[in-house]
């Protein structure tokens, strides 16, 4: 696999390229509107949805508040049931643990359950460097992997592909990874799924080791939970001898009862289903049944940094449902690749800077600005993450990290002069007199008018061109409201 998010340009440039991709725009508009409608329908039928959201947020907040004790409880429960627990501070440590387990069993391939944590740490690439093939078995992840592509959505990583493109990927790439696609493969969804099933089946039956993530890790019973739709996860979790699960430390919930809330919130928010087809739970090793060696890698990789952020820590409530992506008007037009991370969309715009820190690279620092702050994400979030507020907080952190930097001096100067102008009404009045003069000039010189009769400015010099390249701007009026009020005593004279 050669595709990588490393070195991606900042969001505005990446978005410009994506916006020009007509196939991408069509695929995304169709897919997001379909899933939005499905979600809305199944959420509307739950009378106590808001109470569920509040409960989900409260359980996560309480757990995060005592994360240290819950994690130790989880570790003890897992080990009591025969699992080995590893703690990984970062991606490198986590990948090293998984690779060493694979090496100790002499395997050169593993089958994978769809997992965001392993995407985040670049596990497939790390294993490949050691000569170990990691086969994605989720249909969409398989499409991404065979296409030497990058995921563009948390739940449906191949959302940017349509079925004609998928057929081409299967025909050209399946043979190189195992069983080839049938010669007469059509772009019928059932035929495509059938080809994937045959291709994957031999991998399921052959693999000695599987790697998964977990949607939830129950502390008191030492139970890991994977929620999925296709049954490929169930295959990976039951057939191989060795199972390694990479689990972000924020995935812990205290008790089995807490799952009650999340197993209602998650499927309705993510796939728009009342219930997901497969929910696998496993608590350690059962002799003679399923994997006989089990490892759990508890992953930090920036989560404790996010936890230390008083405003941003709520992002750790995220259950990776993707509802915020599907309702986001920015994501719908740019797709996921523009965000330069396995976590795209509104949650990615806050999670990446929280995990990596701001002021380190331009790409990450551009993400909190990749939003119009419309608030649709907050309304859709099943655990009530106030994404707009976190975005504003992260913007403030980006600005503070850049203070004094030459490359952003222009914007800083503009904001400082705006703040100076708005500091007193006398200064604002002065600026408005200037714009009133412009209004007089425009009335004489500009011919173009807006519907309704005002003069329109259509070509502004930089930086105003960022506006006027595609939008007219009304010319300023000759008289401000303030000047009118003073001149007419509030319209009375």
């Amino acid at each position: 696999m050669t595709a990588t998010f490393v070195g991606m340009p900042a969001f505005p440039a990446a978005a410009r390229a994506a916006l020009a991709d007509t196939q991408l725009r069509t695929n995304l508009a169709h897919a997001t509107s379909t899933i939005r409608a499905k979600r809305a329908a199944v959420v509307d039928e739950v009378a106590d949805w808001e109470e569920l959201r509040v409960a989900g947020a409260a359980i996560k907040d309480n757990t995060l508040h005592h994360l240290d004790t819950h994690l130790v409880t989880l570790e003890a429960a897992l080990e009591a049931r025969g699992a080995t627990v590893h703690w990984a501070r970062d991606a490198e440590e986590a990948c090293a643990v998984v690779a060493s387990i694979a090496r100790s069993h002499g395997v050169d391939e593993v089958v994978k359950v769809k997992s965001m944590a392993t995407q985040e740490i670049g596990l497939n690439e790390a294993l490949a460097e050691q000569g170990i093939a990691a086969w994605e078995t989720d249909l969409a992840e398989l499409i991404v992997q065979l296409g030497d592509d990058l995921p563009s959505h948390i739940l449906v990583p191949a959302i940017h592909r349509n079925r004609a493109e998928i057929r081409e990927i299967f025909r050209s790439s399946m043979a190189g990874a195992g069983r080839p696609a049938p010669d007469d493969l059509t772009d019928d969804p059932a035929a495509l799924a059938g080809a994937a099933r045959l291709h994957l089946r031999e991998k399921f039956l052959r693999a000695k080791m599987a790697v998964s993530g977990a949607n939830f890790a129950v502390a008191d019973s030492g139970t890991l939970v994977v929620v999925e739709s296709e049954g490929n996860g169930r295959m990976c979790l039951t057939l191989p001898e060795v199972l390694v699960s990479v689990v972000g430390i924020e995935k812990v919930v205290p008790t089995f009862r807490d799952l009650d809330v999340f197993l209602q919130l998650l499927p309705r928010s993510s796939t728009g289903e009342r219930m997901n087809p497969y929910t696998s739970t496993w608590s350690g090793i059962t002799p003679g049944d399923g994997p006989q060696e089990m490892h759990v890698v508890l992953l930090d990789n920036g989560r404790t940094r996010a936890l230390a952020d008083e405003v941003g820590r709520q992002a750790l409530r995220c259950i990776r449902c993707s509802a915020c992506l599907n309702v986001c008007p920015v994501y719908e037009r740019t797709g996921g690749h523009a965000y330069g991370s396995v976590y795209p969309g509104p949650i990615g715009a806050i999670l990446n800077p929280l995990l990596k820190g701001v002021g380190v690279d331009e790409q990450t620092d551009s993400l909190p600005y990749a939003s119009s702050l419309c608030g649709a994400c907050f309304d859709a979030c099943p655990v009530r993450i106030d994404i707009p507020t976190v975005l504003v907080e992260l913007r403030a952190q980006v600005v503070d990290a850049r203070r004094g930097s030459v490359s952003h001096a222009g914007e800083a100067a503009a904001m400082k002069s705006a703040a100076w102008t708005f500091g007193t009404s006398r200064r604002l009045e002065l600026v408005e007199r200037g714009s009133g003069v412009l209004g007089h000039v425009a009335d004489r010189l500009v011919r173009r008018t807006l519907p309704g009769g005002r003069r329109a400015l259509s070509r502004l010099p930089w930086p105003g061109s960022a506006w006027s390249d595609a939008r007219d701007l009304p010319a300023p009026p000759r008289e401000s409201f303030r000047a009118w009020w003073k001149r007419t005593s509030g319209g009375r004279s």
Partner: protein
Amino acid sequence: MRVALMVTCVNDAMFPGTGQAVVTLLRRLGVDVEFPLAQTCCAQPMVNTGYLDEAVPVVRNFVSAFEGYDAIVTPSGSCAGCARHQHGMVARRSGDASLVSAVAAAPATYELSEFLVDVLGVEDVGAYFPHRVTYHPTCHSLRMLRVGDRPLRLLRAVRGLSLTELPAAEECCGFGGTFAVKNAATSVAMGADKARHVRDTGAEVLVAGDNSCLMHIGGVLSRQQAGVRVMHLAEVLAATETLS
């Protein structure tokens, strides 16, 4: 009740007609609205771009300009949202305890439709506007303030007005403050879709409660020579038979 008009910096400098319409409308409804001349801006441009230190003197000016009033009314959902939901954050972050308490003690800020429906208890404001209209609910009025259908109730009571439903109405137009220039391409892509929905209604006038959003959508519509006029809700509600 002493009511202050917060006209907003955008309306003050660019859309004085909207401020004048609020004054006309409120006087017609018996409210002798005042305009505190010390006001400037709610500080949202700085806050939402991340310049929170720079926002502090602007918030300070806001609370002192409106001190002593019973209510603030503003023809902007976005600026009302900033006053209600962001001034506290700016004050807390500044570490100035006196500013924190001044913000907490500031008069309640109402977006125009909230003030009309909730405070004055009117839906029929006696307006006459014989045009085909569609209404865009701006994001901050919809999701920060939760004004709900108040603007629509006001519009439905306007004589002569024919209201057409806007498809995908609740989707953002793409303005987003400095987003409109920092991510201009994405902003315009969103604006183009909003403009398409507006054209699909066949309306001659697009109405909303925020002139900044209308400036963006109107700018796209004008570039397309779509022949659709954008108007602030206040200007529609201020119109009467004798004037138009």
